[in-house]
């Protein structure tokens, strides 16, 4: 379990982290969200023992990060947002180098390297030089490097940055496998829809301060009351149908902000329990040719924009 309490960090006079407190349970895939400069990288660097906090503590499985950096480093793997690779080294040699740095012997290393390459889907790039790998491959390789010593916590700072959708999908797959392996993963990203899909819990920070920390359900529940419902009608004779739909909706209590989005698409806010939504749907389909009726899933981007400040 990872626990942060009152974590604070100054850079000169600039307050980058303002008494950040949060908890991440074992085996969670925890998203870390915030605008640029919010303090995500600072937090992650502190957890990776690369920075010391000005105040506050961070504890991993009972071990305090700033007091026992060597022990922490054995328990966690870190992948920074910007990193370089060595030229003139092959992919397996790259992993071999870091494995040696971790102190693994020859037999162990040889076994481990092949397993890791398979995990991140780079087996056929084993003998390729790292500097000619694509960006996505380099990031997967760097992730493999973070896994060499089988850490229980992974700290990934924007692991999918700059990757095309296919590469991102592959990365998501890998992260899911990591979760299945029982690892705790802290991942920061700007690709919010993916995070909300993948993560069990989220923390949102802005200007160094905590805005929200908890499970995705909590956040959804908190927000979904505001998510609009979309109603799409069949296009034939739609002018009349649309008018009829609007009249019907106006009569239902709890409905507000009816707006026409497209020629045959309406959206409206509905404050009501699931049963009431089902009733509403039944009523509408009885009288109108309904093509589509759904509630927008929580739009994390909207949430993000709402809860964080403009710079």
């Amino acid at each position, binding site marked *: 379990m990872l626990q942060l309490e009152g974590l604070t960090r100054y*850079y000169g006079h*600039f307050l*980058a982290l303002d008494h950040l407190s949060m908890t991440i349970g074992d085996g969670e895939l925890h998203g870390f969200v915030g605008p*640029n*400069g919010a303090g995500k990288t*600072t937090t992650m*660097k502190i957890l*990776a*023992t*690369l*920075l*010391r906090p000005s105040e506050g503590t961070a504890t991993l499985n009972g071990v305090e990060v700033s007091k026992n950096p*060597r022990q922490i*480093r*054995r328990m966690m*793997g*870190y992948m*920074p947002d*910007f*990193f*370089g*690779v*060595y*030229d*003139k*080294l092959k992919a397996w*040699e790259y992993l071999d*180098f*870091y494995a*040696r*740095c*971790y*102190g693994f*012997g020859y037999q162990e290393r040889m076994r481990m390297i092949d397993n890791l390459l398979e995990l991140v889907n780079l087996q056929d790039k084993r003998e390729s030089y790292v500097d000619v790998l694509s960006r996505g491959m380099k990031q997967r390789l*760097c992730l493999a*490097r973070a896994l060499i010593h089988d850490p229980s916590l992974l700290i990934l700072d924007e692991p999918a*940055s*700059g990757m095309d959708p296919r590469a991102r999908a592959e990365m998501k797959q890998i992260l899911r496998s990591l979760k299945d392996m029982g690892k705790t993963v802290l991942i920061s990203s700007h690709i919010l829809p993916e995070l909300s899909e993948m993560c069990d819990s989220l923390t949102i920070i802005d200007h160094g301060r905590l805005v929200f920390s908890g499970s995705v359900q909590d956040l959804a529940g908190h927000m979904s009351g505001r998510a609009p419902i979309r109603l799409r009608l069949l296009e034939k004779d739609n002018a009349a149908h649309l008018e009829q739909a609007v009249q019907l909706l106006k009569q239902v209590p709890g409905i507000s902000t009816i707006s026409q989005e497209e020629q045959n698409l309406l959206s409206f806010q509905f404050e009501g329990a699931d049963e009431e939504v089902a009733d509403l749907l039944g009523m509408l389909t009885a009288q109108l040719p309904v093509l589509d009726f759904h509630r927008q899933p929580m739009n994390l981007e909207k949430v993000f924009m709402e809860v964080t400040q403009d710079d």
Partner: protein
Amino acid sequence: MINPILASSARQRMRSVRTPILVTLYGLLLLAFVYFTSFNAFGQPTFTIGELRRSVEGYVYLLIVQFGLLVLVAPAMMAGSIAGERERQTLDLLHVTNVNSLSIVVGKLMESFGFLCLLIVSSFPMMGLILLTGGVDLLQLLTGVLFLLLVALAALSVGLAASVFLRRTVAATVVAYLIIFAIGAITVAPIFYDVQRIGKIYTTARDANHIITTIEGYTPISFVINPVLGLLALIVDQTKLLHTTIGQFSHTLNVTFEYLPFGRYVIYNMIFLAGASALLVLVSALRLRYRKADRPRLRRDKR
């Protein structure tokens, strides 16, 4: 287990096409230099004993040229060692592996040192020619090589320290060279005082009508701490050359030349070089350990 940084860096260097080119050029340079200054005499149908002496000169030239090359090349070799890792953003990745700072700096140092050893060893055939014609024996030759190795080590250590303390390779390179020149200047300064002291010892003894064999009472500081003077002492001790050259600079040294134990100065000089290298390495390791986090670049959107 071999230091992983050493192993990896060496592997990277050996894969570069520049490495064999450098070794070849180095060898050819020395070969050409030595041939045209000293050894072409041996191509003639006959030569005199006096000409045999030229091979000793060849050996001296080799020492001087290699000394110069090492001092010029070594700092630049190391300036990118740590600063380069910082610039390439791979230093953090090293830190989180728990590999200790001393291992990192020693690994980098040993890798570059290994390459310089390779270069020095590639000069053995030329240096060894002197063994054919006499003038210097094998032990002296090896002492000369040892001296060069220690100079290389010290010059590399300066580069290493600069690389650790400075954030960028370019700055580290410049500062390393500045330090080298500063060290050269500072360590030669005591020579004025040294010469005075030696002169005084000599004149006191002479006025008292003592028979002088060696001037032992005082070890000149400059000969111990300045590598160039150390080199000169080595040459004098091994070949008995340079009397007139040195004598031109100082009347006192001219007169006392026979009595100065240059061999001893060389030994002290080598010890000093070794000690200075060790100290620089330790300081570098400590600095690297306690300054893990760079000042952050408060960038906004880098992408």
